[in-house]
């Protein structure tokens, strides 16, 4: 096993290992590779939109559709989900004091489905948009790209169901008998919550993917109006999975904040109990709000009100997390190393994204913002501002454990400033762009709309700044894993105190890379 190793292993031994740290490593590297690939597509989209009417960089609308489809699918299913699973794989067994995940081989199978799904999605380059609404996706989306997209997501879904089963069993059945469930560290609690949510939510989407495939083959007509089906039914099935999925993306990032903020505040967590409560609350409330994605589909007033209240019910639980972070930092001897910077930035942006979400859920306003760049700005502010900030901070935190080396604190600060700046500039601007009336997913717009042009150019400059911050991140990951100074494996950040991974502190886990 890895822990007794004294010398680097051959590459293939790491690639085909079933040990949780190896699988975690593979998950993380794969998801980061997809992050940078998806980021290139995002920069192409923004650069194209900076110059209306010029057809710059992307010369036809169909290619534009394909690019933003693959960008969205990649970031959600090939970056966010596998990255959380990777960090979970690394930390959860250690946190519950078990030697490995409950089913190591299942764990490796779940990982190896990710590259397969990525290959299908990237080779096909479908143009259905990441939501793949019927009837376009069943009647007109050209094959084989759209079929490959369906199978790619099918495989990604199965992968996340398998890894969820593994997490649930590891945390509930394999934790140390001396460790009561309520004392399990909050990052493990977040993985437990999202795993249970995945097990409840994902089968619905898996079923609707199969329905979509058979609809495309014209053997069924679930979503095909000319065969008596209903495209709105697809929206219900899709958002029943993907509103909870929002929390499935978000909660691991919150859990990472719970891991890092007390550590760098050098102070115990303010309240373990409220964190657990808020996770469980979000896990349940996540299922009560899918309808707010479809207010404009002609729901009746009572249904809309129910979904509006269900959405607002997520506010207190999210607020509990934020207050828990602030109370933990209050009076602490805070060290603003890179992981802590990103977590604090993440909290600030989480608050602004959440505030925008509350506005969105009010149905009168939603009718104005629906289908505009407001929605694009809101969802990206969540995904970049909170989730990516949490993940990048966690990557810096876990970097010494993976490589045995330290990253450059100076460059991490530069990355933090650029990333914060870029995120605010792109996604706040997109909110305003939405209020100006710019529809989402449009290929081009008239140059006469000068306010659109200006705002788009501001957003695009912000996107390049954000891109620059990720170039620095990539450089950090590559250069400092080869040439970084050797980390003190007992306490890489010189914080003192107890870690969750005492036995592992002796050697970096990921010997070899």
């Amino acid at each position: 096993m890895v822990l007794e190793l004294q010398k680097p292993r051959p590459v293939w031994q790491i690639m085909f290992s079933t040990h949780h740290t190896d699988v975690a490593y593979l998950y993380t590297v794969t998801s980061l590779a997809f992050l940078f690939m998806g980021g290139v597509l995002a920069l192409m989209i923004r650069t194209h939109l900076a110059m209306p009417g010029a057809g710059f960089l992307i010369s036809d609308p169909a290619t534009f559709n394909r690019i933003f489809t693959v960008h969205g699918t990649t970031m959600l299913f090939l970056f966010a989900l596998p990255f959380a699973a990777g960090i979970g794989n690394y930390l959860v067994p250690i946190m519950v004091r078990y030697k490995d995940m409950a089913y190591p081989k299942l764990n490796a199978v779940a990982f190896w489905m990710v590259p397969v799904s990525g290959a299908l999605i990237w080779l096909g380059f479908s143009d259905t948009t990441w939501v793949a609404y019927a009837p376009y996706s069943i009647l007109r989306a050209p094959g084989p790209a759209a079929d490959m997209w369906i199978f790619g997501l099918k495989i990604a879904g199965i992968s996340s169901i398998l890894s969820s089963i593994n997490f649930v069993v590891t945390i509930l059945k394999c934790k140390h008998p001396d460790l009561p469930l309520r004392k399990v560290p909050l990052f493990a609690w977040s993985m437990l919550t999202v795993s249970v949510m995945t097990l409840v939510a994902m089968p619905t989407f898996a079923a609707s993917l199969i329905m979509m495939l058979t609809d495309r083959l014209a053997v069924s007509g679930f979503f095909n109006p000319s065969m008596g089906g209903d495209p709105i039914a697809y929206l219900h099935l899709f958002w029943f999975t993907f509103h909870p999925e929002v929390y499935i993306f978000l909660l691991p990032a919150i859990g990472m904040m719970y891991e890092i903020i007390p550590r760098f505040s050098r102070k115990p967590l303010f309240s373990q109990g409220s964190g657990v409560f808020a996770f469980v609350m979000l896990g349940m409330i996540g299922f009560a709000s899918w309808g707010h994605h479809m207010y404009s589909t002609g729901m009746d007033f009572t249904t809309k009100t129910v979904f509006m209240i269900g959405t607002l019910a997520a506010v207190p639980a999210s607020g509990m997390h934020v207050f828990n972070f602030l109370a933990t930092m209050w009076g602490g001897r805070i060290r603003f190393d890179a992981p802590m910077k990103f977590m604090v930035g993440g909290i600030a942006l989480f608050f602004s994204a959440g505030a925008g979400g509350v506005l969105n859920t009010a149905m009168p306003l939603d009718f104005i913002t629906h289908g505009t760049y407001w929605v694009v700005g809101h969802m990206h502010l969540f995904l970049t501002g909170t989730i990516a900030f949490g993940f990048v901070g966690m990557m810096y935190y876990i970097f010494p454990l993976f490589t045995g080396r330290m990253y450059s604190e100076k460059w991490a600060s530069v990355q933090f400033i650029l990333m914060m700046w870029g995120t605010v500039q792109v996604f706040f601007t997109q909110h305003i762009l939405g209020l100006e009336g710019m529809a989402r997913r449009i290929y081009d717009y008239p140059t006469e709309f000068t306010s659109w042009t200006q705002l788009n150019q501001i957003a695009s400059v912000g996107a390049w700044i954000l891109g620059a911050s990720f170039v620095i991140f990539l450089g950090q990951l590559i250069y400092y894993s080869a040439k970084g100074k050797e980390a003190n494996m007992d306490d890489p950040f010189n914080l003192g105190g107890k870690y969750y991974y005492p036995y592992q502190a002796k050697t970096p886990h990921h010997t070899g890379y």
Partner: protein
Amino acid sequence: MSRTEHEAPPIRTSPNRVVKMLAIIIGIQVVGGALFFTHYDFWNSYIPIAGVKQEKEMANETTTNTGPPNIQGIFSGKEIDVPLKFVESSDFTKYGFNAPFGQSGANPEIHAAVGDKIVFSVANGGKSFHAFAITTSTSGPGPAVPDTTIGTADSPMKPGQSGTVTFIPAGDGTYYYICAVPGHRELGMEGKIEVGAGQAGTGGTAAATGNKVEFSLSFEMSPDFAHYGFNAPIGQTNANPDIKVKSGDTVTIHLKNNSKSFHAFGVVIDPENPAAVLWSSAFKTPDSPMKPGESGDVTFVAGTPGVYHYICTVPGHAALGMNGNLIVS
């Protein structure tokens, strides 16, 4: 936690291993990229079976339509030029051609006969995106008559762009020229094209005037036998040339069978009824056709004015492309 003497030092990542890892990741991406770009047209090559089925159903609906045929006709009449301009009212509530709907000069009605060539010069003079189409459908954006569109709803004409469209009505009835962007037709961008009865030939005979004209035609087939035609398989530029003669001319046609199949020549009114050959213009018959390589001349006197078809009278060959226009004036 200090380390004791006999504990081995931690193993750390080396440049060598980082390079190996990057080589694996970049290698996979290069192979994937090569696969993707070498098959670029393949990934988006067909629409789903459900979509094909739906298109067929839509096509069936248009054939049961009582309006005129939704196809381009054959040019046999006069040429009509129509300049059109997309415009919107300043508050964007009324749209129209040449003027917003409701004002004078908006959506001019066009009168034409079957076989006339109507040339639309269309310019987008508004501030919004538009797309030009001609359709027989009385509501909604389509389906358009083939080759009568400028832009589509997905890739419309931007403000200031322009283009021309040639439309030859194939039957009598009402066609509409519209903006194909959904919603714009309802806001007023719809004009009528009233097409009067056509000038198809009646098949009457005429006395010979003594004027003699000569033409050469050859029977051709594509190597896969899918496309037939005179002088070239249909679909190529010089296939099925229009033959223009005057009523009473003595027409001589030099025929040659350059194909690998049997053929026969004749002038008819309706290509779907190849047996009704006019004016003793038949050369050979389906029962005793021209063999490959055979050639010969046929001479006949052109009858009353109108548009006729010269075809291969072997059943099925006209539908595969051996069908040209004989225009008698």
